[in-house]
């Protein structure tokens, strides 16, 4: 318990220092990131973590904190900018859900106003069933790898840096009281693969 509390505190401490505040949402189904089926049928379900940490999307400049209105970095998080990335030749899908691209801003839920997930949490009950534990790990691997994909898309279009330079995505798995912290990152040991 101490360990998890300490890690949680890291996130909270960071919150006070970030110019663009982090946010979190529960049970968001990442409709914008359902994976394309492969020819061999190995299709993964879309991520739906118990908790997703990411960055907020602002519907308009009116929603931006006043001190940030004139800052370019803050304006990158406006809904219009996120939409433009999607409409660009790179087709970058930065939001978790698709509603931001099609819906009326008045209908946006808070879960629609999140982009760049950087941490996920998966929870299962306490069990001695190793299969259930493994399934929790696999769900976390799926979600965090998708989050890494989102970051990678932007990274590749920016300055051509290598994906190995990307910071990892953080994942927590909770099998009852057994909490684990995972890091998801690119690993080129066997070609282009993600290691969790």
């Amino acid at each position: 318990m101490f360990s998890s509390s300490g890690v949680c505190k890291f996130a909270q401490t960071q919150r006070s220092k970030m110019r663009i505040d982090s946010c979190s949402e529960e049970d968001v189904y990442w409709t914008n990131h359902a994976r394309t089926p492969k020819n061999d049928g190995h299709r993964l379900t879309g991520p739906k973590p118990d908790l997703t940490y990411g960055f907020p999307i602002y519907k308009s400049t009116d929603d931006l904190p006043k001190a940030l209105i004139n800052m370019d970095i803050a304006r990158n998080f406006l809904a219009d900018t996120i939409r433009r990335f999607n409409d660009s030749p790179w087709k970058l899908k930065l939001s978790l859900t698709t509603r931001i691209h099609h819906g009326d801003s008045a209908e946006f839920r808070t879960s629609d106003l999140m982009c760049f997930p950087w941490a996920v949490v998966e929870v299962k009950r306490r069990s001695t069933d190793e299969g259930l534990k493994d399934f929790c790990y696999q769900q976390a691997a799926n979600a965090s790898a998708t989050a890494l994909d989102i970051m990678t898309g932007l990274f590749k279009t920016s300055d051509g840096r290598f994906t190995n330079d990307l910071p990892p995505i953080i994942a927590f798995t909770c099998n009852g009281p057994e909490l684990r912290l995972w890091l998801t990152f690119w690993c080129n040991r066997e070609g282009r693969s993600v290691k969790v």
Partner: protein
Amino acid sequence: MPPNADSTKSPDADRSKSSKIKPNITVDNLKANGIEYDPTILRFHAAGEAQTEDLPPSIDGVRQFLLDFTASSIHEDCKSFMEHQLSEFKKTWTLAETATRNSWSLVPPTTAWWNPTFPDAEDDIRRQTIIDDIGQCRKIAEAAGDLQAATEAGWTLFLRNNVFRNFRGTSRPLRKYE
């Protein structure tokens, strides 16, 4: 739940159906999509000790940062208190538990301890804040102990309320030591 959403049903139930047709999360499917996961727990290294072998330097830096307690370090005065608590708690363990149970979550790692030289008054405030934090963590741990047979929904609610708190609509005053 949407038809393609991340399923929470048991893996046994998943295996009984054809994973070739329905979207599914399995080791094979993850691997086919270029995702490998390694459940091996990395050995903890305190700052200054040898790096973890398998992690690239940029990733290992984040790992060290996540496990660095210097932002929320505990005054060394609390060490004897926490060790005493652990020894008292261990008295309730069975012989088998003594042999197998980990105590890492009951006494923090070396990097968590902190012994600065600050003016006494400021030090007292910090110490009291940390003692309050430890007391809060203990309450959470005790509450978790009552949840052993809880359902997934019960654990989820508990963890959301106590460990993974929602950022939205919450604020926390800066503490003296921040």
